């Protein structure tokens, strides 16, 4: 009996950690959706790219972990901006844009994933952890690294919150998310705001990818898994709601950890499918339905 409780508690801890990582990744999705109403079907590959770019800078340019991460995130920001301006913005102005954007991003994601595969090869890559060593708190096993991850996520969320609420640009993004016409009336340039929101989301997602890669492993295809989970999380949290996404990430991360304990990790996909189905049946608008950034 005590054994089960031990396992359960460890699952809880593990679920909390993965939940926090998912939360950061889900925030990336939410920022894009909230502001531009684009659902980024290339989200997974963006996350993975953050990891790969960091790996690239560490192994080829000899940078330390932190500088490499910073540069990778900056690169992701620029890529997001360029991507938005050159391709997504013109698409948004066509009729049926919702559909075209989804297919376009899917195709682009796969193209990009394949290019990553060509460049980096299919074998698993490693990003060094931030801290090494582990300790035990009673029977709970945690690494220092995992604690570092949670701290980083908390800090990131605080920083994001600051950007959104205390900078002109952040407020502009919130305004666009809440009422596009109102935003136009106060003189906000929609195209520019969309672009920066997309770029910011890309950077955040790329950053979350680095963190995820340090906890799990990294191949070009793993982004797809992260992305699908991210989708379920943002729907559960309520499309467009940042707080909802964070709560949902923790709840679903914990649920995943506990269910995996009993059923084994093979059933991950059907589990997420059923969680999603149940959400849609019971409360499709999610936890914070209707609220936005």
């Amino acid at each position, binding site marked *: 009996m005590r054994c089960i409780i031990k396992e359960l508690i460890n699952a809880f801890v593990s679920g909390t950690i993965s939940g926090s990582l998912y939360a950061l990744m889900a925030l990336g999705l939410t920022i894009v959706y909230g502001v531009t109403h684009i*659902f980024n079907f290339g989200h997974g590959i963006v996350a993975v790219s953050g990891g790969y770019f960091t790996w690239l800078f560490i192994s080829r340019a000899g940078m330390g972990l932190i500088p490499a991460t910073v540069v990778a995130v900056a690169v992701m920001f620029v890529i997001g901006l360029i991507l938005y301006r050159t*391709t997504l913005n*013109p*698409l948004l102005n*066509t009729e049926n844009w*919702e*559909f*075209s954007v*989804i*297919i*376009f991003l*899917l*195709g*682009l*994601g*796969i*193209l*990009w*994933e*394949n*290019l990553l*595969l*060509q460049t980096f090869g299919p074998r698993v890559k490693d990003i060094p952890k931030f801290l090494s060593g582990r300790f035990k708190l009673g029977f709970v096993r945690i690494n220092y690294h995992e604690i570092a991850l949670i701290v980083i996520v908390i800090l990131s969320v605080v920083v994001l919150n600051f950007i959104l609420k205390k900078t002109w640009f952040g407020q502009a993004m919130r305004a666009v998310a809440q009422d596009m016409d109102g935003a136009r009336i106060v003189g906000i340039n929609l195209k520019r705001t969309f672009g920066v929101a997309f770029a910011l989301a890309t950077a955040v997602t790329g950053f979350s990818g680095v963190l995820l890669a340090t906890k799990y492993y990294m191949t070009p295809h793993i982004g797809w898994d992260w992305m*699908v989970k991210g*989708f*379920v999380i943002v*729907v559960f949290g309520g*499309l467009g709601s940042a707080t909802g996404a964070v709560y949902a990430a923790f709840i679903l991360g914990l649920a995943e950890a506990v269910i995996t304990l009993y059923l084994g990790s*093979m*059933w*991950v*996909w*059907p589990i*997420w*499918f059923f969680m*999603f*189905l149940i959400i*849609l*049946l019971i409360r*499709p608008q999610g936890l914070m339905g209707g609220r936005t950034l």
Partner: protein
Amino acid sequence: MTKLNWKIIAVALAMVGVAVYPLAHGDMYIMHIFILFFIWSTVASNWNLLMGVAGITSLGNIGFLAVGGYMSGILAKQFGWSPWGCMILGGVAAMVLVTLLVGLPALRLSGIYIALLSLIFADSLPTILTQTRTITGGAMGLHDIPPFFEGMTRMQAYYIVFVFFMAMHAMIWWIIHSSTGLAFVALRDSREFASALGVSEYREKIKVFAMVSFMTGLSGGFYVHYLGDISPTTLGIEPFLLTIAMMELGGIGTFMGPVLGAAIIVFGNEFLRLAGTLRLAILGGLICATILFFPGGFIQLIGWIDNRLSRGRKNER
């Protein structure tokens, strides 16, 4: 004196050509490619009915095919029933499963939900398949699935699938021009007015969804009884991308578009195979380029050529 439309002539000639091909030339490999074309074109046309006509962004249609195919194959192998019955049961199974699990919950919500749910649905199928190894053959898949009838030749298979292809497309044509198809046109032009007239968007979408999942599941049946095997790789990213490419390259929302696109992709797949590991990158890039620059696909191109020709003819007078 009616002006003969060169497009209709071209299509009629093509149909005749396809019909007599086995008798005229009958190369085994080319017939095989044609059969694949018949099947995939049906899948693409059905998918297009959902996406281009009914405006439902479904991303899981390959899953429908897989459900129908697996069901039919399993029934035929385990119980030895006639493939014809199994295929229909496969189609029904696909229709029921998919409409219940995906259609009913998601179609009453906005478009993004059905895209997500159908995607996750199709993504979960491989896991379920690998975990039910005893029935479904797991990762290795089902093999030695009986053909349509004992001792079937390729030419016979060709004609059977050809008739299926024509029948399915006639069905799709009928749906587009029926009250259901008109309902979608009305909804697209003016949603409020259509609702005021009593058009229930939800009901029409469920109808189309059920029909498409049935036809796609049925195609799955024809797929397995022709090829003899099916495995979780059919649910991989490549068939998915290829089918999307068929619709995009051909011209989404049109009737002939997916057929044209399927022809291009199935026959062009040979060249694609030469590219080796870059296949997926090229496919992805092709889809992106088409959406950005030629969203109407080949049909748009043909329409543009048609325009030029008729303008030229007008100038001559």
